[in-house]
């Protein structure tokens, strides 16, 4: 114990020396030696630089993936601009290093650094990770260790940063619990300013005890300090989390921002290098009431909150003026559902009529309304259109509550092809609850029907067209009606993928792609994981697992070994099929939607009953308090 403390202080001292060195010399020479130096350059248009003397809180916004992925993410841009708008606060970005940069950092014993000032991660006050998907978990550990921050919350001492997590991934934070000091549940715009204020108050108070800061913020709604809670096991079974201190909430309720009045960035960062989504994003609304039963976003972002057309027009104008982006994407979970979407598109078209700005509408429904809408914004009608029927038969679409019929899909496909598009992309999911052979064959059947439609179109208009069919594998997610459902086994995933591959093999118009089965399996393990998974995660990381979402970096055998060596049977998680009365590892995180509603939805799913969209058909009783929709639909029986 004593010895390790000595080692640690030497380490800290070295880090300090290195840090000074970093800022002045070696940072440049690193850039000369990596493949894509623009990933680590910073200095983009709208990047924020503040004089060191003006800063009393230094925040690292960390994204556990490469620059080109993280910079395509809306959340980090909102938080970056929001935090930097607060006087005294300086937020910088840190992304996961690519393999070549990691190797350089390790061989030269340099810490992972921020983009703006090249500050090592361990020198920040707060390090906040955006947690988007399960396969980024090892990248988080890698960034912590490379950044010189002890992996475990309990090992962090005075002077170490506080490590926090936010984003959709924290709605089941348990597999990450020991690595984080706290999690922020819900909309960041709502909670971050309050948290930063609290931190500055604590820092100014001169109280150096980490624990007292954590105790203080543990009472802020939406903040979850995992070390203050302990799993209770009764008769060998998980029986919920128990607060270890008095006065702590037993349930952490997510925070929800009033979107219309909330902060939205206008000075979007403009990257030098080509990133995944190289465009400005205008979030038109948050939340979704479609009610697809596999979808976690549809639950955790409730209620639906719209920005007004006038605000969106103003934001759109300023964003384009301040960035020079050629494209403005109207972001949401289901763009067709924006009330007044046509008026909005017209207003933006009017705003940009002399500006050569392309509007894009992702996440459209597969219907002719959506196509006409797309035609309104697309300057050239060629190119592709994407539909997500998700399942191959009406029965299974009813199970998942995807309210679209075969006729609507075929009608939309026909219209798409006749209007000059030459590419249709279709998203399906395999392994959905109750899926049978005929549902898989139904996918092939539906695609064949679309191909036949496009055959007709070919004679009339286009000489070439393609159909891309993409099949992902169902991953049961926490807080969804399907949280009680198992994932099908790895062997079964592969069998069903092979069945589809055979179906499409002879069809030259169809390009069939699928997700790697082992990745979906791993996702399922962690999506409904608990604290017992943390050692396996750490093991996999230590054995070399990195950036698992990049297939060339992914090694499943390594994960298998990590599970074996830590005594975990991953099937217990992926195939987890709890009863309704069982405590679930994420029950202490409250999305506002009641477990009872999820249960009812699950039962309706099994019976193949659709549940209407509450915005159109009245409140469905999801349990959400303060839902703005409730007033409108008060008279509708629940």
């Amino acid at each position: 114990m004593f010895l390790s403390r000595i080692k640690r202080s030497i380490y800290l001292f070295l880090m300090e020396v290195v840090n000074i060195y970093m800022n002045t010399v070696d940072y440049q020479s690193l850039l000369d030696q990596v493949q894509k130096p623009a990933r680590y350059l910073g200095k983009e248009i709208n990047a924020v630089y503040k004089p060191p003397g003006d800063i009393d809180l230094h925040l690292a916004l960390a994204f556990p993936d490469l620059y080109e992925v993280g910079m395509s993410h809306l959340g980090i841009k909102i938080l970056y601009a929001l935090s930097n708008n607060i006087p005294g606060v300086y937020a910088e970005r840190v992304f996961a290093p690519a393999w070549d940069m990691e190797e350089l950092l390790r061989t030269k014993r340099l810490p992972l650094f921020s983009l703006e000032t090249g500050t090592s991660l361990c020198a920040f006050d707060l390090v906040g990770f955006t947690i988007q998907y399960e396969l980024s978990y090892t990248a988080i550990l890698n960034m912590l260790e490379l950044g010189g921050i002890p992996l475990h919350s309990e090992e962090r001492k005075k002077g170490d940063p506080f490590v926090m997590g936010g984003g959709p991934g924290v709605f089941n934070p348990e597999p990450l619990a020991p690595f984080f000091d706290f999690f922020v549940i819900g909309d960041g715009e709502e909670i971050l300013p309050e948290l930063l204020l609290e931190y500055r108050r604590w820092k100014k108070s001169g109280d150096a005890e980490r624990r007292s800061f954590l105790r203080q913020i543990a009472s802020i709604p939406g903040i979850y300090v995992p070390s203050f809670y302990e799993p209770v096991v009764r008769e060998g079974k998980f029986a919920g989390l128990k607060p270890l201190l008095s006065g702590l909430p037993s349930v952490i309720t997510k925070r929800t921002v009033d979107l219309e009045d909330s902060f939205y960035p206008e000075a979007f960062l403009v990257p030098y290098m080509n990133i995944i989504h190289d465009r400005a994003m205008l979030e038109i609304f948050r939340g979704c009431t479609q009610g697809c039963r596999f979808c976690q976003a549809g639950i955790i972002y409730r209620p639906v909150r719209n920005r007004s057309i006038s605000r969106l027009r103003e934001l759109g104008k300023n964003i384009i003026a301040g960035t020079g982006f050629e494209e403005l994407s109207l972001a949401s979970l289901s763009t067709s559902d924006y009330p007044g979407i046509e008026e909005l598109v017209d207003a933006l078209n009017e705003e940009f009529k002399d500006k050569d700005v392309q509007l894009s509408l992702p996440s459209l429904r597969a219907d002719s309304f959506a196509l006409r809408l797309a035609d309104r914004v697309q300057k050239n009608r060629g190119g592709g259109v994407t539909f997500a029927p998700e399942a191959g038969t009406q029965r299974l679409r009813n199970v998942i509550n995807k309210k679209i019929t075969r006729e609507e899909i075929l009608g939309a496909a026909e219209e798409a092809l006749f209007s000059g598009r030459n590419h249709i992309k279709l998203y399906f999911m395999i392994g959905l609850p109750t899926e049978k052979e005929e549902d898989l064959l139904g996918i092939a059947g539906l695609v064949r029907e679309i191909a036949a439609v496009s055959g007709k179109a070919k004679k009339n208009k286009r000489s070439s067209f393609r159909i891309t069919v993409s099949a992902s594998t169902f991953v049961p997610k926490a807080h969804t009606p399907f949280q009680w459902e198992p994932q099908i086994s790895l062997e079964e995933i592969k069998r069903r993928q092979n069945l589809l591959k055979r179906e499409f093999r002879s069809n030259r118009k169809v390009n069939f792609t699928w997700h790697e089965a082992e990745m979906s399996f791993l996702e399922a393990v962690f999506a409904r994981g608990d604290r017992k998974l943390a050692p396996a995660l750490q093991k996999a990381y230590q054995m070399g697992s990195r950036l698992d979402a990049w297939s060339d970096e992914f090694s499943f055998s390594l994960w298998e070994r990590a599970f074996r060596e830590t005594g975990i049977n991953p099937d217990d998680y992926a195939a987890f099929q709890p009863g309704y009365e069982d405590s679930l590892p994420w029950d202490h995180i409250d999305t506002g939607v009641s477990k009872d509603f999820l249960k009812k939805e699950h039962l309706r799913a099994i019976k193949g009953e659709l549940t209407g969209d509450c915005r159109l058909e009245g409140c469905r009783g999801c349990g959400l308090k303060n839902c703005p929709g409730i007033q409108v639909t008060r008279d509708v029986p629940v």
Partner: protein
Amino acid sequence: MKYISHLDLQRTCIRALRRASVPVALSQGFNPQPRLVFAAPLAVGIEGRNEYFDLFLTSFWDGTLLKQVLQEQLPAGLEIKATLPVDLHAGPLSALVEAALYVALFPVFPEEYAHILTDILEAEEFIVLRAGKNKGREVDIRPFIYNLETKKGSDTTRLFMLLATGSRGGARPEEVLAKFPGETKTVKVYRENIFIQNGEALITPGGEALQEYLERLRKS
């Protein structure tokens, strides 16, 4: 700025022009693009001291004003040195580029290096292996090496490399530097200027003759 690629640089300039509300003309065709064309792409990792691009506008803009509004929108590290109106019928600069002058800065330049220089210039050929589509291919770059000369300063020795560049083939500075033993990868290299053909002589796109330019450079 030397860490961003040619395409990144182009995009950066286009977006700066858009922010500055400069009316850039678009190309014809199915997928119209802003008409901004760099004279000669610069490799990642090499700094450019005098780079050029052709820019087409939909209406006439005063050069001084253009320079000023564009400069305001460019990130630090990109400086507009001058704007020149060009006859619409003049060919694109990229088609006229003949040579580029690179400068490598050696902290030490031993006698051995001087011999290597002489050897390169006296040799009949200079074969390098370049990456091809499938396998590498051998290229003789000797005809593309127009001149190599050094100028010894107080703390560094400058190596001037006048190399052919453009559509008719060329040599790359790193190919020449690879001839020197030791860690030449860390030698700082920048592109000083590019040259176009003017009758028998080479001149900068701004009109300065190569010999005068070199003379001025040697004295600096």
